[in-house]
């Protein structure tokens, strides 16, 4: 189904038969639903940027005159306004741009009699700074630092402590809670740690379910036994954890079945700037 058909559906100008078929597909094909929603976002942007034809604009303003759709337009325009504010802060007049002025003046500076000594001093200083940095940089990093070099990956480890009142083995009456996992922007790998208060026995498996996307990752579990509490560690790529809500389920294999031993809800977000 091409974009023009979807746009006509959104504008309410598609014929009844195809409209019904399209609507039915929304219920059975989640990917298609997402595509239509993305088309609607685009349609609102095109209306805002005056890219619709006169007829399309009239159809849009008729179809989107309801309060619910008005709310959606306002939400979309909020992001556009934020984008325009961001662009305004990025744009500088060309004449006032320091880099432009330097480029314009650089040829004349090069011709000046004092240019060569200045160049020599600048080059020597730069070389000295670079030499110092290369020499001391590895030892300048404290052990266990989360600063990732070009060939190192950044691992973020967190212990999930929030548990709910409906999980197995939980105390009745406890309010379900969730952990907030705020990842540094450069995180490559995420380690989810869970303390287990009972011996594990058989190997554990883990499933991390994205509640928003409905996708699940099945992962191995490292178990680190300790005197008081055993720690189960689940390691996964940060790219598999976009911002959103998740549920980690730890299970133990019992023959042909698996027994869930704990569940943990957590919400992933990225650290602010």
């Amino acid at each position, binding site marked *: 189904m091409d974009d023009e058909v979807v746009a006509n559906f959104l504008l309410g100008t598609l014929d009844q038969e195809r409209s019904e078929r399209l*609507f039915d597909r929304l219920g*059975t094909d989640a990917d298609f639903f*997402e595509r239509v929603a993305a088309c609607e976002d685009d349609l609102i942007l095109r209306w805002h940027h005056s890219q619709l034809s006169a007829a399309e604009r009239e159809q849009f303003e008729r179809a989107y005159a309801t309060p619910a759709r008005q709310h959606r337009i306002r*939400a979309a325009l909020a992001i556009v306004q934020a*984008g325009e504010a*961001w662009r305004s802060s990025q744009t500088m007049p060309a004449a006032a741009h320091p880099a432009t002025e330097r480029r314009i003046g650089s040829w004349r500076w090069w011709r000046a009699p004092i240019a060569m000594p200045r160049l020599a001093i600048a080059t020597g200083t730069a070389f000295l700074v670079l030499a110092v940095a290369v020499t001391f940089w590895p030892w300048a990093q404290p052990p266990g630092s989360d600063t990732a070099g070009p060939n190192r990956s950044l691992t973020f480890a967190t212990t999930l402590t929030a548990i709910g009142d409906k999980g197995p083995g939980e105390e009745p009456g406890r309010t379900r809670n969730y952990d907030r996992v705020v990842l540094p922007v450069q995180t490559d790998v995420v380690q989810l740690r869970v303390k287990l208060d009972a011996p594990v026995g058989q190997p554990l498996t883990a499933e991390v379910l994205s509640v928003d996307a409905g996708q699940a990752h099945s992962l191995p579990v490292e178990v680190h036994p300790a005197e008081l509490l055993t720690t189960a560690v689940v390691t996964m790529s940060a790219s598999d954890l976009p911002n959103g809500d998740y549920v980690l389920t730890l299970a133990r294999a019992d023959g042909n079945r698996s027994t869930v031993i704990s569940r943990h809800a957590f919400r992933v*977000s990225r650290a602010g700037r």
Partner: protein
Amino acid sequence: MSADSVTPDLLAILHPDPVVAEQQYRRLLSDLTRAMEWRGCHDPEGVAAEAVYRGLKKAAAGVDLSQAGLRGFVFGIAKLVAKEGWKRDTRAQQLAPETWEQMASRRRDHEAAEAQLTLASIQRVLPEQEWQMLLRYSTETDHEDLCRELGVEPGYLRVKIHRLRKQLRPLAAGALPRARSRATGLPKESA
């Protein structure tokens, strides 16, 4: 019983874990509300809530969902509920032309402070590369350059942008259904 009576037993139809069930319920409700908006329903939120409730009740009663799945089944019920709603109240709440003009002027005279606040919120939620991509997409009239820079097709980029907007729910998700109150610990979505 009304749509406000969605009990934990009905939610369990969606998933045995109540946390996951609540999230899937909200997602189904949100998607169906949006689909009913596209259908031109005058009360998309109410119709969606009623349809999901009826669908869960029927599923709990053992109706065969093998053909369409629960989601397709609920979408089908929503069509019937919408027809009932239209029978009761067929007056549409439409914007008058002068109100559209106000909407247009609002585009030009947007509040700078509000825009800055929204920008700060977006930059807090999304990684730098993603919020820059989102804001460029939202402000550029031609996305060919952006597609070329990222090496992706326009359709892929459109869906990618849509997913980023979903992460900005209080800012970007538009009309969301009123969340049912459940002791899940997960915050309610804004209406």
